């Protein structure tokens, strides 16, 4: 029987892994994602989940353990935050290139230096070019659902790619939200068991990952890029099926909120989208025609969906909750891909970016009002005053 509970994002992720009947889990503690593993440890110890719970010796080991386990055809689950995510860096490309559908939960966290438990998207953003599927959840229910959807997509024989299922540390990972836990039969209908031909099996020996010559490398990499190209179609199918079975309908790639008649758009991903919604409702009451485009998948980047959503408006505020030091905007990393998506649109909106929520700082309704003010002025002036604003640090 489906039941409704009030649980945090971490607990939701653990429940999703349990519902997905993961088979090999590898843990290592680091705030704020640790709670997922604590929850899973209890489930395994009580016999509620039949899985191997391996205590990794570090985050690099976590990814290595699930690489080996996934190579045998077991459904795997691991996770981390902050510098733990970056410590494991070496193993991300090997996993993706080996086409192993590993799933990693990231409760994001600001990178050192120094220690900062607050949320920031930079940790996961650092690894977005490694060939994994990646996307953020706004609240615990979406986190739960994203785990199941990502297993379904990543394990599809047309795909076989690993997935980063991300949520904002603390804001989603620790603040409870309403989650409907489905009946197991619904999950079993949505998510078939993992089947992999390219697995390590003494009955059918393969050599997995021999050394190659440089002239053999580009073809392998093209194959990886092509796999990414297949994701949108498979993701759409999965999300339609999800809606049919669970009754919750997600836009596959970009959620458009009050965008159809809008002049201004907030482009955002993750937890702060919830605050953006409240701000948009408030601004609408004041007559400001503003909407939101919420990004659900960073990889593969939904170029057409972004262009379609944002070409409806005249000015866009890209909310950057991560840093790309020295980048084109001297700000964050979302802006580059937004502008690339819009480059060929005949009537491009004005685009600027706002550094918000860095270090785990809260993002307030007033901050979105500030963004709206600047977008309105930009439309009046016919140009943006600058490419990046650092909220809370500007003279005005």
């Amino acid at each position, binding site marked *: 029987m489906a039941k409704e509970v009030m649980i945090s994002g971490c607990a939701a992720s653990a429940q999703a892994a349990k519902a997905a009947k993961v088979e090999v889990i590898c843990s290592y503690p680091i705030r704020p994602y640790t709670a997922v593993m604590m929850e899973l440890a209890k489930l395994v110890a009580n016999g509620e989940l039949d899985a191997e719970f391996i205590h990794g010796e570090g985050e690099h080991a976590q990814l290595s353990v699930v690489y080996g386990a996934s190579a045998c055809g077991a459904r795997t689950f691991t996770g981390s935050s902050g510098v733990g995510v970056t410590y494991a860096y070496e193993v991300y490309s090997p996993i993706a290139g080996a*086409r192993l559908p590993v799933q990693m939960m990231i409760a994001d966290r600001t990178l050192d230096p120094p220690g900062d438990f607050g949320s920031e998207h930079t940790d996961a953003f650092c690894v977005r070019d490694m060939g994994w599927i990646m996307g953020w959840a706004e609240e615990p229910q979406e986190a739960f659902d994203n785990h199941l959807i990502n297993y379904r997509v990543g394990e599809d024989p047309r795909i076989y790619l690993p997935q980063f299922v991300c949520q904002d540390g603390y804001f989603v990972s620790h603040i409870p939200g309403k989650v409907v836990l489905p009946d197991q039969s619904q999950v079993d209908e949505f998510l078939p068991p993992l089947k992999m031909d*390219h697995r390590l099996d003494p009955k059918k020996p393969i*050599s*997995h990952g*021999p050394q*190659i010559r440089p002239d*053999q490398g580009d073809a*392998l990499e093209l194959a990886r890029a092509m796999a990414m190209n297949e994701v949108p179609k498979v993701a759409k199918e999965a999300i339609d099926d999800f809606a049919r079975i669970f009754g919750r309908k997600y836009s596959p790639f970009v959620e458009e909120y009050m965008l159809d008649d809008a002049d201004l758009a907030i482009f955002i991903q993750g937890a702060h989208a919830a605050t953006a919604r409240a701000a948009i409702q408030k601004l609408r009451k004041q007559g400001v025609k503003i909407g939101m485009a919420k990004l659900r998948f960073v990889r593969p980047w939904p170029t057409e969906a972004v262009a379609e959503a944002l070409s409806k408006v005249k000015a866009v505020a890209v909310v950057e909750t991560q840093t790309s030091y020295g980048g084109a905007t001297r700000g964050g990393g979302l802006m580059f891909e937004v502008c690339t998506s819009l480059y060929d649109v005949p009537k491009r909106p004005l685009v600027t970016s706002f550094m918000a929520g860095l270090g785990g700082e809260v993002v307030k309704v007033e901050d979105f009002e500030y963004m709206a003010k600047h977008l309105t002025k930009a439309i009046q002036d016919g140009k943006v005053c600058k490419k990046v604003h650092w909220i809370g640090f500007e003279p005005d």
Partner: protein
Amino acid sequence: MYLIPEHKQVPFAGCTTAPVSEQRMMITGNWRTYRPVINREECNLCLSCVAYCPDACWQLNEAGDEVVWNAEYCKGCLICVNECTHGALSKAHELDFEDGVVRLDKPF
């Protein structure tokens, strides 16, 4: 959308099928300058050559009465000559033999 030329075809995820009894994509017989030669009169089938060859180029035949040398893969390290317990093995220059120096149809 993209055309992968014949010579660039690569296996899925870099996974190749395992060899069964030899790996023909890495024939190494053309490495050697010397080859081991066996005097069957002296051989007592101690099988040291079979044990000590890093390339498994000495094998006991089906009948179990002769050790057989693999000309296609032997690198000519001559460990077997050194380790033969009965002096049945000696070395000879590869070019002394008509079938000397395994030639490949194409490089690699």
